[in-house]
């Protein structure tokens, strides 16, 4: 199916042309005035990044979907406060990240996870059939989960979602220099974790 023309304009944010930026800011302005038809293409353009960050932080697709929906509802509610001179995606990811942080430590999520532990769930589908690339990707995710939450955030933003440093700084609401120093510290810890606990990942890459 041919992508929605507006979506096509704004999907690849890092390569936004002036025209596309104008398009996005126009849509945001219209949405801020209550136009849901303007909000829909903006959501379509960013829903994957918001969902994926939520999934990485929470590890559960149902929780990630809840958080992603809540992100867009909150953003819609506060659109008038959004500064149109700033990039839009980091603002959304910042909301998602905060919501995920609250959700992961909530009593409701705890109870749900605990009860899921009693379920007779099948093992993750056909893990032996997954490609080496997928296995390595998932193994890296398991390694990152051993980091503190703030370190996880920065790794996910920078390497999993491939955000440039300035956008990661917008999401975390810190200076670019702070992102770089935090990233260095997080990488150092991650390297140790991989070396000590994920020999297959480590060996595979060293080879």
């Amino acid at each position, binding site marked *: 199916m041919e992508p929605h023309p507006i979506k096509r304009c704004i999907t690849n944010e890092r390569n936004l042309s002036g025209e596309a930026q104008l398009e996005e800011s126009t849509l945001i302005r219209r949405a801020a005035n209550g136009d849901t038809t303007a909000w829909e293409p903006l959501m379509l353009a960013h829903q994957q990044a918001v969902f994926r960050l939520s999934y990485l932080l929470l590890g559960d697709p149902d929780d990630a979907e809840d958080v992603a*929906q809540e992100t867009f509802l909150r953003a819609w509610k506060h659109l008038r406060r959004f500064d149109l001179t700033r990039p839009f995606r980091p603002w959304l990811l910042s909301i998602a990240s905060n919501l995920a942080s609250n959700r992961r430590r909530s*009593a409701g999520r*705890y109870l749900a996870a605990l009860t899921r532990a009693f379920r*007779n769930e099948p093992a993750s589908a056909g893990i032996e059939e997954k490609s080496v690339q997928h296995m390595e990707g998932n193994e890296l995710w398991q390694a990152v989960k051993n980091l503190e939450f703030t370190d996880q955030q920065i790794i996910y933003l920078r390497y999993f979602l491939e955000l440039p440093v300035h956008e990661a700084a917008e999401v975390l609401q810190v200076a670019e220099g702070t992102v770089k120093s935090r990233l260095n510290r997080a990488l150092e810890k991650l390297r140790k974790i991989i070396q000590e606990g994920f020999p297959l990942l480590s060996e595979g890459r060293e080879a």
Partner: protein
Amino acid sequence: MNETEFEKQLLAIAKGMEYPRTPDIAGSVTARLRSSTRLSLRTRPLAWSLTILLILLSSLMLIPPARAAILEFIQIGIVRIFPGPAQAPATATLEPLAPTTATPSSQPSTLLTTFLNQIAGETKLANAQEIAGYPILLPSYPPEMGLPNHVYVQDANGPMTILVWVDAQQPERVTLSLHFTPEGSWAIEKFQPAVIQEAEVNGQRAIWAEGPYPLRLSNGNMEFVRLIDGHVLIWEEGGITYRLETDMSLEEAVKIAESLQPIP
């Protein structure tokens, strides 16, 4: 390997990360926004309708048969169980007490250990007892049960204590969890569990529910809804609602519940 090479490798490996398919979030949110817009347009007439409805309901509640028809849920402590829509009064639909074997979990969550370590409010048993303000009880049956592997006290509008026992051979597998929730805490609602049975714990009424069923936790400000497949024994005593979740049978769950003793 220098940092830049390591970063390049991370980028390459992270590309292989397998995500679930992104759901239609835009569609769901748009539908929710449109329905709330429609709702707000009707707010004034709706407010009047609700007022009238409340008056009517209040009047109906004074009439016993009508009250029985409206309150089609089972309340035990802070837990409400809705057996299902358009049924006779809930208590009349309960199955007689009979042994039921729960389905044991053969594939425990692989993320559970990590998850248990990340939960807020983990503490030591002695500390939990100080915070809780009510007696935390431990099962003396089965004898090999021992002390819980994890103890949490969380604020759920009241100190909710959760004790978790994991399988010694398979630490990723939870064998039992016991929840103590004082009055005034979060309301817990279950909808149409697959099985609801009357039971007794120390002569007190108890309910045994088996999933799957949606479980809603709410405290007026927040709400969570989840599909639960677990088995749970619920009873109330001295203002505390007890929820015992296990993969054991109802008979075993009752034995465990009746063996609860204060911390020595």
